[in-house]
């Protein structure tokens, strides 16, 4: 079915039934919240729109917001695909998302404290011990360690989708080093440069206040006895795919962007090497994975980290954000216990729903999964970035058998969920010179500090650019959109 429009740039927009279209009603009219925007966009001819789109792309390119693709000859730089048609979330819906994100972050923080201290939730048999004892992300070095001000997941990225029923569901929690926040800000900048006029008709919340809030959070978890803390951002280096984000955050917070080799540890204090000699570092926003932060304590082959860092952390002389060992709680197997975890620690009902999940480690559920592989999404519990996911209705008969074999080989490694139909949104497809339906999700960024919580009013809307594709991760060729949270 076509939307009711004569606009040229919607010529190949084909509205499929069964998906939740965020912009068009079932009768093909633009929903009231999108009405104005739809008219403003539709007004452009294809040629004009192509020009705007190219300008926006050039804006990313010139700002150096790129990632490297290593080809046969030389490394090529590419920009992350960006779509100019923004996604709008109204104030009421946003309030639910925001409250739900904070609730999850707080519950995860309490869960982390518990599993690294008394393990009450295990002893009360709410969460099986198996989930800790079989997780390589459960760091024994963190047992009994009190992170400054009791905060583990200072930064959480929560991935949320809108299902066909119009409700939001959490897909996963990312509380190791969630990335993407710089794209939220770049997307806004690019959209403002290309189509400033559209902002006159909507009152969207700003997204540029993320860095100042992150800075407040980091300062709030300063070590005992430090008056004005020195904070830094640590990066694996300029060849890391998220280097732009690391440098953006350091610049926006006005702190140094360091690499492991810029730091040293002496008598359990951390210092950075400046042109005026050593300077003590108090809070480290780290964008290096757990196992690489200290070669003397974790992966001995790591050249990214800092020998002795963990001892300094353990002693409380430096704060790491996020704390080491948070990975145990964003395991996909822990995810399925989130409703119980929220109830256990906060005595509240979850504000955001979980997707029903089947554990292949449980006999009865394993049986169901094996019988219904074609109707399920099967995921390994410990892979990030969309790797190893199989989507049942896309598989051939042989592939289904393959998946079953893989599950049976190590059932504990897999969980399965019903195939969700992610909502769809008009996305400009260059090859067809028209907007088309594409699936989207939303990553929210939640900050947790001492007596402070913050959710960025916007978040990253990710788009699966291939038609019908449900995997939106940028490492799998996904794009993104500016996301407007409207003021009340």
């Amino acid at each position, binding site marked *: 079915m076509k939307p009711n429009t004569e606009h040229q740039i919607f010529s190949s927009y084909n509205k499929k039934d069964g998906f939740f279209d965020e912009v068009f009603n079932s009768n093909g009219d633009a929903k009231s919240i999108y009405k104005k925007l739809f008219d403003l966009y539709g007004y452009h001819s294809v040629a004009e729109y192509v020009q705007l789109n190219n300008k926006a792309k050039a804006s990313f390119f010139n700002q150096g917001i790129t990632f490297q693709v290593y080809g046969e000859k030389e490394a090529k730089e590419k920009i992350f695909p960006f779509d100019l048609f923004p996604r709008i979330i109204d104030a009421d819906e946003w309030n639910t998302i925001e409250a739900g994100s904070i609730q999850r972050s707080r519950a995860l923080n309490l869960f982390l404290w518990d599993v690294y201290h008394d*393990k009450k939730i*295990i*002893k009360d*048999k709410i969460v099986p*011990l198996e989930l*800790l*004892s079989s997780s390589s992300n459960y760091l*024994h*070095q963190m*047992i*009994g360690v009190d992170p400054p001000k009791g905060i583990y997941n200072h930064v959480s990225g929560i991935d949320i989708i809108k299902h066909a029923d119009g409700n939001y569901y959490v897909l996963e929690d990312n509380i190791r080093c969630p990335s993407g926040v710089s794209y939220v800000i770049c997307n806004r900048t690019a959209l403002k440069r290309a189509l400033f006029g559209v902002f006159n008709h909507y009152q969207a919340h700003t997204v540029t206040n993320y860095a100042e809030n992150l800075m407040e959070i980091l300062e709030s978890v300063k070590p005992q006895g430090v008056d004005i803390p020195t904070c830094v951002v640590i990066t694996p280096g300029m060849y890391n795919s998220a280097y732009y984000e690391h440098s953006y955050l350091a610049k926006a917070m006005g702190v140094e962007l360091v690499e492991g080799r810029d730091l*040293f*540890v*002496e*008598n*359990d204090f951390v210092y950075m090497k400046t042109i005026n000699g050593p300077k003590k570092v108090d809070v480290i926003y780290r964008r290096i994975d757990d196992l690489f932060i200290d*070669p*003397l*304590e974790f992966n*001995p082959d790591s050249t990214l980290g800092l*020998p*002795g860092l*963990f*001892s300094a952390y*353990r*002693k409380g002389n430096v704060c790491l954000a996020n704390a080491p060992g948070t990975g145990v709680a964003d395991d996909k197997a822990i995810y399925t216990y989130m409703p119980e975890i929220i109830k256990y620690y906060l005595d509240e009902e979850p504000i955001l729903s979980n997707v029903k999940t089947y554990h292949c480690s449980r006999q009865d559920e394993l049986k169901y999964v094996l019988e219904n592989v074609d109707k399920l999404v099967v995921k390994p519990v410990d892979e990030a970035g969309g790797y190893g996911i199989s989507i049942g209705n896309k598989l051939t008969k042989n592939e289904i058998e393959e998946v079953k074999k893989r599950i049976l080989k190590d059932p504990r490694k897999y969980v399965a969920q019903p195939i969700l139909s992610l909502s769809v949104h008009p996305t400009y497809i260059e090859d067809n010179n028209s907007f088309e339906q594409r699936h989207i999700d939303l990553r929210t960024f939640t900050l947790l500090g001492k007596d402070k919580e913050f959710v960025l009013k916007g978040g990253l809307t990710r788009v699966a650019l291939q038609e019908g594709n449900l995997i939106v991760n940028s490492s799998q060729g996904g794009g993104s959109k500016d996301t407007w949270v409207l003021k009340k």
Partner: protein
Amino acid sequence: MSLEYTVTYCTENSYENDVSEAFWQFCIIPENNTTQDLISWDFDNSLKALNEVSINGFGFQVVRIHPKQLFKKITFKASFKLVKKEINPYDFILNHEVSEDYATINNIVFIADHEPFLRKTRFTKLAEKYKSLFLFDSTKLIFDNLLELNSWVFEHLYFKVGVTDVHTSLDEVIEKRHGVCQDFAHLYCAIARENNIPVRYVSGYLHQGNGYFGDSQMHAWVEAFVPNVGWVGFDPTNNILVEHNHLKVAHGKDYHDCPPIKGVVYSKGRNTTKYVVEVQASQQ
């Protein structure tokens, strides 16, 4: 009665080419506990790099060294003086009922509290085919089972230096039936954990005056959790309970949690390491 021990630990590292930067972390200082008192210690290196005393991720005292110049060779020399109480290793009261023992170890609170030492690591995981190598007799007290396991490991493996190293898999040790104290300790840990007994791998020094097995390097044994008693030391390399000849440094899930030396060294080419440990005793 007490015994005074003097331990010396020397190691020499040589590199084919200049080392531009190096960090070492030594976990070799005997701990203070109810049976041993560290009186004094001393640690020197040939480059006069400073000692940084710190605590590692598992709570044990370590010394970190970070030389500030280029070098090709460095020697370290440590010496420790400690007083050890002469103890009767059997001085404890066991449960009367066998069932109490098993009720304890099957309680979720107990399991959760001892999770790290029940975990099967890469070096303490029995392959499926070896799971029935040694089975606990559930009609006997856990302590008695552990004692039998001690003898079993002692008899199953043949002590031989140089045939295994710290990366040798447990499967290979079981198949070839030989190894050094680390391998004895790993096998003990694997079987005890398979039977749901928390057990710690222990790194320390052994006074060999009594003709015990060990070598001129550090020794390894285990501590298993005996219900109603607590952690009890077993030395499967010598088929004895741990007593005053065992000077404990640290413990972990396996060797890799508490190796005597960890290093990050930036240099190209080959390197060689020599090291020697001496333990001397005198009665007080």
